[in-house]
């Protein structure tokens, strides 16, 4: 390769030297170990690929325009003309709000932690630990936070805005951690050059550091949003498990969302519901995997190597 990227450079190129050593006398144990390791990879991802293909086949009959033009129904007899429109629209509502709430807060927090906070202070360290811990708190606990504080104590009820706030808080650590890594990757020399030209701290951050970190921030943000789209557990606690046959029309509207709708279908025993669930899963997977692909592409294609 004429332009080695950082990943290939820092990764030890053990495969080349190792091959040379093992080629002359390949011992049976060596070969078996290599095959075993390869088998792990093939089994794990082969099974997953098989399962996802199975979902596609199962939902094939339902993959048509009914999925997004028709509403869900709780009546098995009307299932033929049913879809998941209200869930799709609900998911779009929620995810737009999550983007509006979560991204600014997450990015600003990361700027504070990377550029302004003095890491020797105990409160900044605590802030950092707190975010790392929040990243590992089970999503259903965020549902409990939403139920106890946002829906009941703040009186926002079981509405679109409650769901959006809960999911925003849930994926906030993802945005913060990704943004911090992107900001950290911008070399100090850029900042020093900016200061040397008389720029203030904020001018340096907003005109030099942030623009350079945009690909990393974009990747983290998209991954966070795609995680929020797929989350069902917090919304279950927030009482979203019903058949909603209308699209949300405002922040205080009732709602359903794709993963919740899928769960509702799964809890019904009739096989028609299973097919519809599979169709809705394909739709959900298409959205989530497309977002993740874009995120990974943006990172691999646009991230600056310094």
């Amino acid at each position, binding site marked *: 390769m004429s332009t080695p990227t950082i990943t290939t450079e820092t990764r030890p190129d053990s495969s080349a030297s190792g091959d040379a050593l093992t080629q002359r006398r390949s011992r049976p144990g060596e070969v078996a170990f290599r095959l075993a390791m390869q088998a792990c990879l093939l089994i794990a991802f082969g099974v997953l690929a098989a399962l996802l293909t199975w979902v596609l086949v199962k939902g094939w009959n339902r993959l048509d325009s009914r999925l997004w033009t028709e509403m869900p129904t709780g009546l098995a007899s009307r299932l033929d003309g049913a879809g998941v429109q209200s869930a799709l629209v609900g998911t779009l509502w929620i995810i737009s709000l999550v983007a509006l709430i979560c991204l600014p807060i997450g990015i600003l927090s990361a700027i504070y932690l990377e550029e302004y906070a003095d890491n020797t202070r105990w409160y900044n360290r605590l802030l950092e630990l*707190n975010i790392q811990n929040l990243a590992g708190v089970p999503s259903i*606990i965020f549902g409990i936070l939403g139920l106890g504080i946002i829906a009941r104590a703040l009186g926002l009820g079981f509405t679109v805005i409650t769901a959006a706030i809960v999911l925003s808080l849930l994926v906030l650590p993802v945005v913060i951690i990704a943004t911090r890594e992107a900001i950290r990757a911008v070399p100090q020399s850029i900042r020093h050059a900016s200061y040397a030209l008389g720029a*203030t701290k904020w001018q340096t951050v907003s005109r030099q550091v942030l623009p350079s970190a945009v690909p990393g921030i974009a990747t983290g943000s998209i991954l966070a949003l795609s995680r929020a789209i797929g989350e069902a557990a917090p919304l279950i*606690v927030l009482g979203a498990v019903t058949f909603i046959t209308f699209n949300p029309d405002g922040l205080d509207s009732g709602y359903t969302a794709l993963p919740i709708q899928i*769960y509702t279908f799964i809890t019904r025993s009739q096989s028609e519901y299973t097919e519809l669930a599979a169709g809705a899963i394909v739709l959900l997977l298409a959205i989530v995997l497309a977002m993740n692909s874009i995120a990974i592409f943006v990172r691999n294609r646009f991230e600056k190597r310094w």
Partner: protein
Amino acid sequence: MSTSTSNAGSAAGSALRRGRRRPVDSTVKVLLVAAALVSVATTIGIVIALAQPTVGFFQQVSIVEFVTGTSWTPTFAQKAYGVLPLVAATLTVTGVALTIAVPLGLGSAIYLSEYANPRTRKVLKPIIELLAGVPTVVYGFVALFALNPLLQRWWPTDNGPAFQNLLIAGIAMGIMIVPTIASISEDSMAAVPRSLREGAYALASTKMQVSTRVVVPAAMSGIVAAVVLGISRAVGETMIVTIAGGLTSDRIVLNPLEGAATMTAFIANISSGDIPVGSLDYDSVFAVGALLFLITFALNAVSIRMVRRFREVYE
């Protein structure tokens, strides 16, 4: 390490700004601090949301009954509040999941880091990251409708797995966790310096010896962090166990072929119904939630410490 570099940045910045404070800069800082405080408020909110009803719960149910009782039946006429059945089901599912995910994840990581050629790795790593994003409701669906019928058909004896059971939930969860464990372990193996491997090769080690005796031990704290993170995800995972794990909680179920409610499945199940606010059932959701929060908090603390250690050693 990162802390030292950003320290240098803020030190240099404050030295330059000293003397003339600009209004824009100080306003911005207030805004940034406010944003950073949202995550603190989140944690405080979680603690308050859990603590208040939990205290109410323990005013009516003794802690001893909660911790040692072997029957959890808040929805029955004969109510019992022993959390052990929920904990046992959680541990069983987690155990099954780890039995699958740790070998497969670690093996995949070793293959990717030590054996795969750079081009294969470059293709596979993003795919693994992509698969880590599959929503958990999808795993619940395939566990119930694809994996379990297969398991029932192939089961050699008559008393096979139930319609919902802990084994199938654990298997699905294991498949779910593999990408996480593989990805983090691979990162820590890639961080092992090349010189360690070359030293071992110079001493006539084979590739397998280098992998198992040099790379894996050197990357151990990262691997442990990955496994602990996997445990934490398994304990907190909700949708798979709610869909495919079963509902029994009136006794401790140790046979993974039976269904039983985990802590998360109980919370999800009871809150999909209508529960009157302030009732003991309502409060029991929060008591179980508090226990879950404490368990994952401890696991996260271990994981954070481990990750920090492997970062400090080689980066």
